[in-house]
């Protein structure tokens, strides 16, 4: 009991220390800009950034762009998740497929995806499909490769049990192979959530009519540094939220049976 108390007190102390450090950093920046040691073109007062965030929400400007970016991300991400897992499954389950296709997949994986963005523009324009394609490319390969790794780790003994019970191929996939690959697949889903969002934003920054990336480029090209920081803050919060959702899913699906 006292041990528990001790640990709680420890946790509180750490948390208070962290908050103090954060406030101190923000305070220093506030001071530097206010005292004009650093020009307001380069840095913004945290108070002004907060004001900008409030403005973005109160005049409703942000909502349209937020919706555009989230739509691009969600479509690309879900598409790559399904396609990635399906590709991984097919490559392992179809005899020789993985050996045959692996060099092609590795080559595609090795292409720095950002270099294709201009070409994608040529093929798909600068609208939704362009960004969805970018998010897809950013996520797909990681998910496919992790699925392959996860499936290969399926214990031989677990497959034997399925064979003894005369499980069909589909049952074996759905009830043995996928559940045992789930933890490995989730690792890639978490990583891809972050890179996928980066893909959507980057695509918007390169060529777009709207979206948060577009808004950010607009702000910086007008030297509206405070607004740029406001958008960066909002994007960061979104990224954290998306990963929190994936973590929650992982907890519901995987972690309850994994020994801690």
């Amino acid at each position, binding site marked *: 009991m006292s041990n528990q108390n001790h640990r709680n007190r420890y946790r509180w102390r750490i948390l208070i220390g962290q908050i103090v450090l954060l406030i101190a950093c923000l305070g220093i920046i506030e001071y530097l800009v206010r005292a004009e040691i650093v020009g307001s073109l380069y840095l913004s007062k945290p108070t002004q950034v907060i004001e900008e965030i409030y403005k973005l929400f109160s005049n409703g400007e942000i909502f349209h762009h937020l919706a555009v970016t989230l739509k691009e991300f969600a479509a690309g991400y879900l598409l790559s998740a399904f396609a990635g897992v399906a590709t991984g499954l097919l490559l392992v389950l179809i005899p020789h497929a993985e050996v045959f296709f692996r060099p092609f997949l590795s080559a595609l994986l090795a292409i720095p995806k950002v270099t294709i963005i201009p070409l994608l523009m040529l093929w798909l324009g600068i609208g939704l499909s362009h960004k969805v394609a970018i998010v897809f490319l950013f996520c797909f390969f990681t998910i496919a490769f992790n699925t392959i790794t996860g499936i290969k780790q399926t*214990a031989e*003994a*677990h497959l*034997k*049990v*399925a*064979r*003894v*019970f*005369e*499980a*069909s191929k589909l*049952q074996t996939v759905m*009830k*043995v192979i996928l*559940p*045992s690959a*789930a933890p490995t697949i989730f690792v890639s889903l978490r990583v891809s959530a972050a890179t996928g969002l980066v893909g959507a934003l980057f695509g918007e920054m390169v060529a777009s009519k709207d979206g948060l990336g577009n808004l950010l480029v607009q702000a910086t090209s007008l030297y509206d540094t405070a607004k740029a920081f406001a958008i960066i803050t909002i994007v960061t919060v979104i990224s954290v939220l998306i990963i929190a959702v994936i973590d929650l899913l992982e907890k519901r699906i*995987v972690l*309850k*049976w*994994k*020994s801690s």
Partner: protein
Amino acid sequence: MEGFSIRGVSMVYGGATPTETLSDINLTIEDGEFLSILGPSGCGKSTLLEILAGLQLPTSGEVWFGGKKLKGPGIERGVVFQDPSLYPWRTVYKNVELGLEFRGVAKSERREAVQRYLDLVGLSGFEHKYPHHLSGGMKQRAGIARALANNPEVLLMDEPFGAVDHLTRLQLQDDLLNIWEAEKKTVVFVTHDVSEAVFLGDRVVLLSPRPGRINQIFQVPKHRPRKRDDIELLKIQNDIYAAIHEVKSSDNLEFTI
């Protein structure tokens, strides 16, 4: 009545230097019999069990069961694995339910069977635990319940109690005998423990290694329940140890020549 009929079964694993794991095994396993298969590691006893389960096909010879030649696994033969191989992502209940689920048995019927066999192996109350919460002995109990839930005619057991501590092991042996008597299944029990093989089995088949072949079959007196210190059982144990020793010394002789 005849359960298994093993006719001239040999197993050779290919590769650069083919190794013969089993050599010309001929054996009949009676319906309802408790048969122990005993042998040192490397004698192919697990391979023989996997052949009976239909997980492997012998390179030559054939196995018949209930008047039919074996071609693969079948629900009439339940298997209990050495490592219980429970699915860690399923609760105990869902693990035991597995075979019924694969067969598409209705949910209410499944619930009845699962509950019955969980009670039988002494795991009621642990339905909703995940395997990593269970001790080794409890995992193996769940493994037995999973095999029984499908209501097989035969239970094929591959060193099921090899990984649990000695006291738990004795308890599991007693409980297994009770289950066997209550359920009237044929049991084929693979082990490398002489006292376990004798205490459990109606007959003990002693295999000798490299390649695995039947060295001798020991008939254990029928009367049950048995006592572990029964003089007759101890005598058979001694006979088996003597037979094993003989194999060893003749092996050594071959090496020195």
